[in-house]
């Protein structure tokens, strides 16, 4: 596996495990329709957009003090591209009015390929959006049909083209793999085609069956069978090798960047315990060891804010050992790994560590423990084993 070019400092710009600047996330919980695999919170009720926006603006006011400056803003969802330019303008204006952003802030918007007309893209650029994450999912018609996507292969290709033509040079494509409707050969072709657009970033997600989704129910009733672990393993390895051959850095389980400094700055904060503020229903926030999350309902969210209450559904204050466990777990999902001193000094922990390095799951480099490609494959197992 490709070593990281110049060490860890490049990725965060801050070095080590020192937290980078804060990130801001806005969850826009609306979709035209629910995708059968998606476990993120969204509702197919465009009529709620206007009243919801009013309450979002109220929520912004609640956090006006005490946060920022931000160097990343992520408009996710849901389908943020469903919102019109005037609507997005209102949100952006409010955010800018009440929060501080660094001049080089990375502003990402998640977009559905159907929503990115040249006009809209120009509008987004005007608003300061400088990174588009495009939900392509696949360049294979059968796979798109299986995934219940409303866009076609042609829509996807056009979308990428339009985004590039509009002058966005920081593009991320979301792709999904690991299901029987998409044979390995077709997945490889999707990857080749994705690379042909030379995006700076690729998110390749293995299809995860989540209980609360339609696919989850299908699996329970026997209407859908997931890949075997061995098949999934093959897909994962092929994806990693192929994209690295194209010069992408496999810097997180599902994330690839080329060049490597085009890593997703906002997502990176999640994996580094950096402070982030999440606005909108179901959004999570984290700062100083405290994590809280908003309610997972648009109506409750609105009702609470209309009563001038925080729309918070839960809070937890992490203990030192919980923080450490999370840091290791999150760190080992990234190629940067964790500082070696985060692994306990006990004999047992050290012997387990050396066992994992001997077996090629981890490597120690510049004072950091990093997962190898083989280590990525068992990243859920490693932290409990090590800590």
């Amino acid at each position, binding site marked *: 596996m490709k070593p990281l070019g110049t060490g860890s400092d490049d990725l965060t710009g801050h070095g080590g495990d020192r937290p980078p600047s804060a990130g801001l996330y806005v969850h826009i919980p609306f979709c035209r329709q629910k995708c059968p695999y998606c476990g993120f919170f969204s509702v197919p009720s465009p009529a709620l957009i206007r009243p919801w926006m009013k309450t979002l603006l109220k929520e912004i006011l609640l956090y006006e003090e005490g946060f920022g400056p931000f160097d990343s803003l992520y408009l996710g969802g849901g389908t943020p591209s469903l919102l019109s330019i005037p609507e997005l303008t209102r949100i952006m204006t409010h955010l800018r009015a009440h929060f501080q952003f660094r001049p080089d802030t990375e502003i990402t918007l998640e977009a559905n390929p159907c929503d990115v007309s040249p006009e809209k893209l120009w509008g987004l650029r005007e608003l300061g959006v400088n990174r588009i994450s495009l939900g392509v999912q696949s360049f294979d018609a059968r796979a798109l049909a299986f995934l219940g996507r409303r866009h076609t292969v042609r829509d996807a290709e056009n979308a990428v083209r339009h985004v590039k033509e509009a002058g966005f040079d920081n593009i991320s494509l979301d792709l999904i793999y690991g299901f029987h409707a998409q044979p390995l050969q077709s997945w490889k072709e999707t990857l080749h085609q994705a690379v042909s657009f030379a995006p700076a970033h690729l998110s390749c997600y293995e299809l995860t069956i989540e209980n609360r989704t339609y696919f989850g129910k299908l699996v329970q009733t026997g209407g859908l069978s997931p890949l075997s672990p061995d098949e999934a393993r093959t897909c994962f390895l092929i994806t990693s090798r192929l994209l690295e051959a194209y010069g992408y850095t496999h810097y997180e389980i599902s994330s690839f960047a080329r060049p490597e400094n085009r890593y997703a700055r906002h997502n990176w904060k999640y994996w580094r315990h950096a402070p982030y503020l999440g606005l909108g229903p179901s959004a999570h926030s984290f700062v100083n060891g405290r994590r809280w999350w908003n309610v997972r309902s648009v109506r409750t969210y609105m009702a609470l804010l209309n009563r001038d209450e925080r729309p918070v559904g839960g809070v937890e204050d992490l203990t030192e050992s919980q923080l450490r466990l999370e840091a290791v777990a999150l760190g080992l*999902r990234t190629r940067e790994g964790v500082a070696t001193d985060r692994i306990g000094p006990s004999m047992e922990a050290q012997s387990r560590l050396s066992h994992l390095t001997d077996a090629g799951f981890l490597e120690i480099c510049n004072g950091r423990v990093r997962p190898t490609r083989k280590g990525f494959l068992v990243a859920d197992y490693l932290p409990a084993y090590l800590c």
Partner: protein
Amino acid sequence: MPNIRNFSIIAHIDHGKSTLADRLIQMSGLVEDRKFRDQILDNMDIERERGITIKSQAITLPYEDKTGRTFALNLIDTPGHVDFSYEVSRALASCEGVLLLIDAAQGVEAQTLANLYAAMEHDLEVIPVINKIDLPAADVDRVREEIEIDLGLDSDTAILCSAKQGTGIEAVFEAIVHRIPPPADNNKARLRALIFDAHYDPFRGTIVSCRVFEGCVRPGDTIRLMNNNARYKVEEVGIFRLAKEARKELCAGEVGYIISGIKRVSDTRVGATITLDHEPAPAPLPGFRDIRPVVFASLYPVASDDYRALADALEKYTLNDAALTYQKDSSAALGLGFRCGFLGLLHLEIVQERLEREFDQAIVMTSPTVQYQFQLTSGDRVLVDNPLYYPDPTTILQGFEPYIRASILLPERYMGVVMELCTERRGVNARFSYPTVGRVEIRFDMPLGEVIYDFYDRLKTVTQGYGSFDYDLLDHRESDLVKLDILLNGERVDALSQIVHRDGARSRALRICNRLKEEIPRHLFKIAVQGAIGGTIIARSTIAPFRKDVTAKCYGGDITRKRKLLEKQKKGKKRMKMVGAVSIPQSAFVAVLKSENE
């Protein structure tokens, strides 16, 4: 002593012994209904859950008969398992009579018969009681016939009752009062009291339960235990009501307790005789036997730093269980621990469970073993009750293993399967007797080592619960003994080593390898599980590695969920023992002991 009656209830399992005891206590007016706990005599959780009585206890019930005479009825509860047969015999020795309880639907069972013999051995008055007459399947006439034919008792004397519904209880009381003889009046003789139970009270020290046969004992007396001549000053004597009730004295015929500054239960012995120090009885009561552990196993803390805590727990535990013996032990795989001696396998399981439950200890227990003897070329004969100390095979001339005389009572129809089971377990020298029509008693000479694994469970399975089992130790006999080692990726797990007969080594090894394959979770690497004698591999299984364990997404909302999963995983890991790089769950150590048919 005309107004005292001392009795026990004996019964086949599930024939309603505890329910009847509860009902007698309740109807005696000793306790208000609303305070009544089910099965009051079984006061430990494990007993409650398993439905067996481990420790005997006594209670004194007040009773007024139809003519207005008042009585003190001492109900002495007995444990119900072969491991505790000695405790049972001491409880029975403290009585003048028993209620022999028979289920009206099930009829006479093997244990009913065994219990009857035990009672007859102590020359006790036996009152047959047919219980559960309220059941739709109750067949009182058939049961009466069985009482006549199988038990040889007069069925007209049987009392009908339903302990559950409370019918017939009055008749039970009357029978206790009028048919069980009163204890002999021996107040003038020198003190002899039989200890049949002892338990530890954190405030009072050891509380000894005893039956006074002769003489009297009072606070201020100095008593002497006749088995070890230890002397104690009596602080308090009394009887058991629902709580202890202090009395001025305990005299011949009475059942009660003595508190006398005995610190730990292990300073006393069930079966020992108490006498007065300045006026000792000329001889103790008959039947004393010292504790003889027959099964040995080591206990280790799952986390090595918990050794101190385990030591404390064992010390506290033995305050209340005189039968457990232990000493320090260590293992390459498991670190520091304790070598323990048990009365039998059930005793072992109870100790393990109570240490985990009451003392919150996560422990690993090694394979239980018996005490072997080896004649060495040097001329020495060594005792080995721990596979770790199996001698260098080149120095062994002969091995010897302990044999028991197994006595199994069962309905004739199960004879074939039981014979098969016993010969499979190297039983020899079978003898048969037919105590009653349709029932057979089989006696076998068998290696104790074959019995301690799962023999009793298997016997119950093949006889559908009808077989009862008891044993006496015989002697040590020559045997071709080898040490079976279990290796994980080439590393010996000394805690799984066993001394076995050569003929059974391969199948035992294979079984363990397969068991471990099921119990040890997949690791990141392949694990070879091997059974070996010396350098020779005789069995093998392989645990394939898992090759993928990762979820694709981990963003804001996933992190808490993921951490909770990890915390759960970590908790599970704490209960694992590391051997080399392999983590072995505690359940794996237990699983290798279990029957293959479970």
